[in-house]
């Protein structure tokens, strides 16, 4: 079988490794870039290169950021008495898009999952405890996804955050489709879920 020239082949191989892209889409994308001319490809290459050179993790909340502090943490318009705990930075973005929430965030970097070897030490739990010591937080919203793992993570946090007296804890899970990640929930659903958040019971 006739094989493609090496640069094309290498591009296809790289594209194929991306989630959601199979051999056929990889080929289609590679030939699209080839046909679209050098400028298009160069712009893409530049964007890819600056991604990891310029992006780092916000020192406070764990969100992706260009500066030491992400825009949310740097803003002085946010309510610093409320902290919303999410599994991933992409969940933070979904909540921001809904435009309903004006407090701060804490990104855990995943959810508990013994099968995948993820315990509390693999998540940003120590950083969370540290922030709660430092900051004057009145309310914590546990917004991990409504999956078995997300629920267990929320439950674990509820237990260890019990040491902070007077801290109000709510769980954001209402209205979200069963088993869905926040990322996929549309903005309306997220907004509704935020308004209808409930106190966590024992």
């Amino acid at each position, binding site marked *: 079988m006739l094989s493609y020239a090496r640069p094309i082949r290498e591009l296809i191989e790289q594209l194929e490794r991306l989630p959601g892209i199979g051999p056929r889409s990889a080929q289609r994308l590679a030939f699209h870039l080839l046909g679209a001319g050098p400028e298009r490809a160069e712009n893409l290459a530049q964007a890819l290169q600056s991604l990891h050179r310029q992006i780092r993790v916000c020192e406070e909340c764990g969100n992706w950021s260009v500066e030491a502090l992400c825009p949310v943490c740097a803003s002085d318009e946010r309510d610093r008495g409320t902290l919303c705990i999410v599994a991933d930075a992409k969940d933070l973005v979904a909540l921001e898009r809904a435009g309903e929430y004006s407090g701060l965030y804490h990104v855990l970097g995943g959810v508990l*999952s*013994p*099968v995948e070897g993820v315990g509390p030490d693999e998540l940003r739990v120590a950083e969370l405890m540290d922030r709660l010591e430092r900051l004057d937080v009145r309310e914590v919203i546990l917004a991990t996804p409504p999956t*078995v793992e997300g*629920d*267990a993570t929320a*439950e*674990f946090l509820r237990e260890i955050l019990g040491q902070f007296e007077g801290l109000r804890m709510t769980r954001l899970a209402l209205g979200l489709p069963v*088993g869905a990640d926040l990322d996929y929930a549309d903005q309306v659903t997220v907004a509704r879920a935020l308004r209808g958040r409930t106190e966590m019971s024992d």
Partner: protein
Amino acid sequence: MYLKTLTLENFRCYEQTRIELPRGLVVVLGPNASGKTTLLEAVYLLATTTSPRSGPARAMVRHGQSWGRVTGVFERDGREVTISVTLGDPSGSRSGSKTVEVDGREVDSLREAIGRVQASLFWVGSLEVVKGSPSERRRFMNEAIGQTSARYLDDLARYRRALRQRNELLRSIRARGGSGSILAPWTRALVDAGVPIIEDRASFVRALAAEAAPMHLRLGAGAEELSVQYDPSVAAGSDLDAEDEFYQRLEETHEREVERGSTQVGPHRDDVILTVDGVDVRRFGSQGQQRTAALALTLAQASVARVRTETEPILLLDDCLSELDPARGAAMLDLSEDREQMIVTSACCPEHLAERLADAHVIDTGGELASCRPCRIPDIEGRNTESHHGP
């Protein structure tokens, strides 16, 4: 609901066959290997999109062909629905695929197709419900309840995930030690998903038992009593509800679960107790008793589904007549009187049932209709003295 026409293309031994079926009793007669079970398999495939036989979907395609298809026209409350399942791709590209169409429109998820047609199948594999391990009876409950409750299937999926995570954690606690605080969230996840499963199973088995006992009496011609009882690993006690009981039992078995690295109590340890005249038919039943009990359970499950979905399932009964003595065989055929459609297969035309079969619609799958001399009239005690189909 009933099946009006069934079209088979390159499906197992069938090349191109179209069959018309009426309501009521349909008897499929033909010698061994003439394609009787295959007909029931085709109907089951339309109802569930899977075969009761294990193996890849490809195995159902007629040898030497690249694709096969089953199409059924059903009538429910005066409305027709056409369902077809295509195995492989007639254009030849996707050989391992399975596509489902409802009224000519391809449905994305198989789930969308499931539930439109209700069918209950009794065949040789159904015996496992009675004589198999407890996991077979749990599977029976899961399939039956899942047919009418998506929420149950969701709880079941969540329970399995919680169990897997919890067991993994127990193994790591065994290896490296660790405190209970890290186990607690998984215990809660297990209980939260487990309690509704326990409740659903309890109410299902109660409904099943109520249908199974009279069904069994009919099949056993009034002789023996079948009792069906849920045997939960954790049940609501006299002073604790199921949730508290579950937590307490987990606490009691904690040492053992760490030692073994697996959760010792919960719905994954459930069973169903089946007794005939007080004797455990799972372990001590004769083959005929086990068969009758399994048949009663299948029919009872169909009745429960009928009540819950307000749809009459089509009954598919494979090879029942030859194994049952004349009284039970007759009782089984009589069931069709209050069912919308019942499709029964037999390799022979039992003479003692000739009268009852006279009104039935007969589908001949080929060859001489074997008249059934070896199925002799039983002795006075009602047992078959000779049977030509050893199970």
